[in-house]
Every structure is written in C-alpha cells, then in structure tokens.
C-alpha cells in the first residue's frame, strides 16, 4: 500500500572520509535541531491566550460525534452538546438546571394533557425560513413515527401529537398528565422540514441555533462558527473546535500543553497533576449519575435482606471517596438519586461503616466460619470513571467482613448483554445510572418490579413510584417519592455508594460554569476581559 522502495544509498553518506562525513552530519543535525523549534515557533498562536483574543475555544470530547441528527442520538456529553449549539429546542435546561425558554417564549398547561407553547416571533433557521407552529408539528410527527425508528422517541412515552393553534402557537398533547414533558422537550431539537426533505440530517445540519457547522467529518473534528443573523442572544465565543480525545491521558496532556480549553468528565486520579498547572482552572461537583453496586435480589444469597444490609455496613464509603476519588464527592445518604432530581428526598442517611454489625447480620443469615458467603462482583472494564478501582476496594473491604468476592471484569458490551438480554446479572455488579430529564420517576422506573433493569421485585416501592407518576400535585408526589426512597434505603436493593464525580478543567480566563448533567455548551462560555 504505502511501502516505498528503499532508496539506493547516496554516495555522500558512504564516503570513505569519516571527517567530512561527520562535519556534514553535524551540520545537518544542527540545522535540523535549529529548524524544529523555529517551525513550531512560526505556528499561529494556538494557545489559550491566542484563542481568547480571537474569541475561539477548543473543547476536548471524550467520544466521537457520530451523527448530526439530533433525534437519533441520546449521548448528551458528545452528540447532543454539539448539536444544541446548532439547533434550538422549545425549552432548554439552563446551567442552573431550571427549565428556561428557547424557541418557545412561554408555555402553560391549558388542560391536564395539553400544553400550549408560544413561539419566539423572530425564531428562524439559518436559511431564513421561520421556526413556526408548522415546524413544531412536523418535528413531533417525525419523532413519533415508529417507521423512523429514532432513538430519542423513547424519552417521550406520553407524547401523543402536536396541533397548530396559529402561526406562533402550538399545542402538545399527551396521553396522560406528564409532569416530565418539559424536561424531555429540552432534548427535542427542531429540524427544518423543507431542508430535511432535501438533505440527510445524519451527515448535514442546518438549524436555528446560535452556531453553524463549518467543518464535520464523521467521528473526526467538528468546527462551529457563531451565526451573525442568530435571532436570540449572540454568544461571546465566535468559533468552536471540538477535538475528539477518547483517551484520558490525551485529554490531560491536551490541557497541560494548552491545546484544549475545556474538558469535562476527567478522572479524579488526575486531579493533582491538573491542579499543579496554574494555567488551568479545576471545577468539581457531583454529577446527576449515581454510582452503586446492584444486588441481584431475585437469585442467590442477595435474596436475603440481611445479607444486602450486611454488605452495605461492611463497606467504608468515606474511605473510598477520600482516597480513590480524592474527596471529589461525598457518600450517598442511602439514595438512588442525586439531589439534582425533582423528587429527591431530603433527610435520609446512609449505612454507616460497621463491620461488626455486618458480620453479625451475616451470621444471622447463616454465613460464617466453615460456610463463608461467596459472591461474584462484575464490573465493565474501562467504562466508568474509576470503576475498577472502586470495585477492588469494595471487594477488599467485603473480604474483611468475611465475604469472599470474585471480581469479574468484562467488556461493557458483554456486561450489558448479560444484564439486560440474558437476565444473567451476577450477585453484585458495579453500575452508574442517570435519567436525562432529571425526573425521579424516570430513574426510579429502573427499579420497579417489571423493569428489566431492576432485579428487584418490591411491591411497596413499585406501588409508590407508580402512584407518584400519576399524581399531579408537587407536594403529594414528593411525599410518595419519599416513601419509595425510604423503602429502597431499608430494603437495600443496591450497595449504596456515591454520585459519580464530575471533574472539569478549563483554561484560566475562560468563564464557564460546569454543570452536573453532561451538557457542554460553548454559548455558555466567554473569555475574561473579552467583549460580549
């Protein structure tokens, strides 16, 4: 393919006079050495400061952007973060996690199952065509059409139809009253029907958002430019480059060498190295993703609630967060949700570290000397931040309480296949879960008895969640979710751990508030001292 035939030796190199050769070689070497930094020095100022002067940012993404069709992806950290700059949605989840306006300026519920949205009068696509009620209706029909097999569809279980009221007003109808509809709508990016008829949304984009794509290759770099004719608030950052850096060391070295301005989702293990660099600003917070070890309550030793409680007592969560996660997070108070979710219950407390109590509970359940508890703990390799380290620490602590743990590290694909398809979850498995719309009902839905994710058949929990989902009033609903949360704390279908830590690094001088829900939007960024 590209094997050049070796060139014949040049006479000069094999000349018989070593001194002439050496001189020439030394000259060549010297010239080469002098040239390299000179060449590098000639490069345009591709440093954070240079980019700040030009209102540019370079963002490192942990995975490739795979599609430009916003309805055919659910990856928030990559695909959707990029596309949210290009397309607009009816409503958006702001950096403070509240729902705010985007293409719709206001909305209200006119009937329990009918929401009315008033559209921004100036909202328009890059080609000048207006974003009006017809556009919204077409997009909802595209989303709901089963023949399109769009991945976003399952985030809208209750959405039934859209009806045009007038040019700037549109109604969305749901089958049942759905308090989570707005959260879901912040994921629904609107395409232009006329444009989509003649283009492939998977590989091309034309939206009504603050930026337009100037360069895209599938899985490669993506470049954005701010639109001069954008109808909303113009972003401070004018040009954006997304660099695909799947490996953690590449992200870290990219930050340290000044090639990247913003990276989300770093490993806490790299904190010390990043903190040592004064040109970087580090932010850390809990993410909306909860990490825990799922227990198979349907089969094997974990059917016994005493065993489930015992493993919860046996593990010192605080020691793990302090050492392995560098104090980036605090242990969960016996909760399946992080406190960003609507429906989160305050006032619960986690299982304290109490190895004696763990041993006592295990004895009670019939385990002990001569008959030790043996379990398998599965972890997907390389999938979760610090996942394998955490699992090893947990196994070590469980063994101190007399539980013998076999760690089973498998590729994520195999892990998912066994978990969901073959229904063959081992006694324990490390997992992190989040629900994109930040609704308690969504994440709790993964624990109700008929969910393939649950491996837990608990009528009290299931009934509380089902009733909460039907309940309109906020207070009554939260009370039901509190009942569910307390039941989960008591029955321990999981070994409660901690929220997945979010570690974010930005170049010094770049204003950006890191957010717990994976969105990285250049429109929220600005350089200190720069106009806008």
């Amino acid at each position, binding site marked *: 393919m*590209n*094997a050049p035939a*070796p060139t014949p030796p040049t006479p000069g190199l094999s000349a018989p006079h070593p001194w002439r050769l050496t001189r020439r070689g030394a000259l060549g070497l010297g010239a080469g050495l002098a040239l390299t930094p000179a060449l590098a020095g000639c490069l345009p100022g591709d440093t954070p400061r240079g980019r700040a002067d030009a209102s540019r940012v370079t963002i490192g993404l942990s995975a490739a952007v795979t599609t430009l069709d916003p309805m055919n992806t*659910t990856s928030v950290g990559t695909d959707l973060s990029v596309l949210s700059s290009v397309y607009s949605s009816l409503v958006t989840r702001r950096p403070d996690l509240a729902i705010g306006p985007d293409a719709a300026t206001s909305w209200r519920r006119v009937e329990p199952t009918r929401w009315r949205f008033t559209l921004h009068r100036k909202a328009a696509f890059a080609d000048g065509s207006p974003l009006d009620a017809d556009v919204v209706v077409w997009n909802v029909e595209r989303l709901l059409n089963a023949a399109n097999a769009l991945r976003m569809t399952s985030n809208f279980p209750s959405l039934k139809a859209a009806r045009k009221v007038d040019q700037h007003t549109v109604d969305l109808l749901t089958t049942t009253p759905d308090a989570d509809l707005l959260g879901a709508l912040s994921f629904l990016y609107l395409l232009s029907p006329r444009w989509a008829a003649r283009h492939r949304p998977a590989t091309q984009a034309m939206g009504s958002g603050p930026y337009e794509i100037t360069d895209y290759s599938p899985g490669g770099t993506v470049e954005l430019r701010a639109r001069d004719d954008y109808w909303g608030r113009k972003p401070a950052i004018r040009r954006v480059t997304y*660099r695909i850096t799947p490996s953690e060391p590449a992200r870290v070295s*990219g930050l340290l060498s000044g090639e990247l301005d913003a990276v989300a989702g770093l490993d806490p293990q790299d904190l010390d190295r990043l903190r040592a660099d004064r040109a970087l600003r580090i932010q850390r917070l809990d993410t909306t993703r909860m990490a825990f070890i799922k227990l198979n309550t349907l089969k094997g030793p974990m059917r016994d609630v005493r065993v489930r409680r015992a493993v919860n007592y046996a593990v010192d969560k605080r020691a793990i967060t302090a050492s392995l996660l560098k104090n980036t997070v605090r242990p969960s108070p016996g909760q399946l949700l992080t406190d960003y979710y609507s429906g989160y219950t305050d006032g619960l407390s986690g299982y304290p570290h109490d190895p004696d109590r763990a041993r006592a509970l295990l004895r009670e359940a019939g385990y002990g000397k001569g008959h030790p508890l043996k379990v398998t703990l599965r972890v997907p390799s390389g999938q979760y931040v610090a996942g394998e380290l955490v699992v090893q620490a947990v196994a070590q602590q469980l063994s101190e309480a007399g539980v013998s743990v076999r760690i089973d590290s498998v590729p994520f694909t195999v892990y998912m296949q066994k978990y969901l398809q073959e229904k063959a979850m081992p006694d324990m498995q490390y997992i992190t879960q989040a629900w994109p719309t930040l609704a308690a009902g969504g994440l709790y839905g993964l624990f109700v008895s008929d969910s393939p994710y649950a491996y837990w058949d608990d009528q009290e929990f299931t009934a509380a969640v089902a009733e909460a989902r039907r309940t309109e009033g906020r207070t009554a609903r939260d009370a039901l979710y509190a009942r569910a949360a307390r039941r989960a704390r008591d029955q321990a279908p999981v070994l409660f751990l901690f929220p997945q830590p979010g570690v974010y690094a930005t170049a010094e001088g770049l204003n950006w508030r890191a957010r717990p829900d994976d969105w990285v939007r250049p429109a929220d960024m600005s350089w200190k001292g720069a106009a806008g």
Partner: protein
Amino acid sequence: MIRFLTRRLSLTLLAVWGALSAVFLVLHSSGDPAVMMAPIGAPPEKVAQLSHALGYDRPLAEQYFSFFGDALRGHFPDSLTFQQPAIEVVLQRLGATVLLAGVALAAAALLALAVGLWTGSREGGGARREWPMWVVFLAQSVPGFYIGVLLVWIFGVRLHWLPTSGATTATSIVLPAATLACGVLPPLARVFRNNLRGELARPYSRTGTALGMSRARVVRHAAYGSLLPTVTVLGLEAGALLGGTVIVESVFSWPGVGQLAVTALQNQDYPLVLADLTFLILAFVLVNLIVDLLYGVLDPRVRHEGRGPR
C-alpha cells in the same frame, strides 16, 4: 509470472476470508448491539423491535452468509451509530491513516538506511561509529505507547513545540509518526546493517576492492545485495505498523481508521467494525503481496523460478 501472481492472489483472498470470519464470529458472540443502542429504560419489546429491524435476531449462520454475500458485492450495511454507509465512514478516515503510516514507514526506512550505512559499511570503529545502533536498541527496548507518552510530555507539555492531538496543523503528524516509526526502525536498521556487513565480507566485495573500485561503489553494490532481506522485514513491519496505528491513533487522537475501530467496538457498531477491519486486513495482505512482488523486481531468481519465494 502470471502463475506466480494468481497463486499469490488466491492465497491473499483466502487470508482475507479467514480473518474476516474470525472477526465476524468473535464480534457476534459478544451480544446483540440493539441492547447498547436502545436508550436507558427502553422496554424489552422496543429492544426486540430494534434488534429485528437491524436483522440481529436472525440465526448466526444466516447473518454470516448475508454479510459475505453483501461484502463480495462491495456492499456494507449502514453503520449503526453514524447512520450512513459504513464504507463511506471508513473511506473518509482512510486517508489519515494511510498518510500517518506512510510517513512513519518512509521515515523509518530512510533512517534505517542511514543508520545501517553509517554503522555497517565499516568493520569495528567503536563508539563513534556504533552510537546510532545504541539509540536503535533503546527504541526497540521501550514499548511504543510509552515512547508516545514520553514524546507528548517532552514536546507537547514541557516545550509546547508540537501539538499532541488531532490532525489540524501540518506539524500534528510529527509526534504520532515518530512514535510509529520508533517501532519499525529497529528491526529494519538491524537487518540492513547485519546484511550489509555480511555482503561486504563476501568475495565479490573483496574482488571489487581489489579491482580498484572506490569504497563508496563497493558499499553501494553490497547495499543492493542487503536490500532483499530488508524488504522482507519491511513488509512484516508494515503489517505490524497497521496494528500499531490503532494504539497510536488513540494516544494522539489521530482521526484515522484505527481510532475508528476502537470507537466502533466500544459502540458495538458491528457493520462499522467489519467494514473498518476489512480495510485493515486488506491493507495488511496487500502490503505482503506488494512485498512478494518486490522480490521479483529486486531478485530476478524469484521471477524466473516460477515458484513461490518461500
């Protein structure tokens, strides 16, 4: 020559088929991609629908034959994640890998020639003559990914001279190509140097010197004689190089087919993995084919014997 070519080509096809079958079976035994594609919380019947729509609920044998039937006609199904023909995605990325591998191979070959000529054209000579080989040995003893990390640290993080990721500027290729070349250079340089020494010790070189040829001419003749085994190693190393691109492209975020293969595997994007690996495998056997043909050019004996070279 025709017989030689057909024999080589049919063996090549057999190798491609065998490699692809292995990949296919390993891939499809790791589960149904519909499970990974469906968003969190999707009910089982939705997952089953998706699996059916994609054809992954068919018996394995049926999937196998339909894959090879399609592949023979040059047709690959759409990538599951990119939602466009897998082959298009691969072709868009192929150029970057060919460029990287080509530059690395050319650099390694040229350096190997230089090192070989410098250290091999003369017996003895001590440190002043032997030092390039020490560097070569060092490069061989250190694993490639470590060299990559080291280069990133020195030239990217410490000196800020060269970009460490992506393929945005002309200098972006320097570090990944250097890392790749470090893996290929040592065996090439060693084989060339040792053969050069051997050729110089043979009677024809002595005769040349005795007839009054200049040292440079004698070395040139000997160098031609040493090329054949060097080309063999070059072919083998070019294959290893293609494997190396998978790691190097990941370390340096180089947007080629190696990085694509990793992404596709992580996403369980079977069609893309198969299309991607088809290209890597084809490239591998093609390089070996070219090397075989190069023997014919470099060594007339191979051509005239009408038999395989090995």
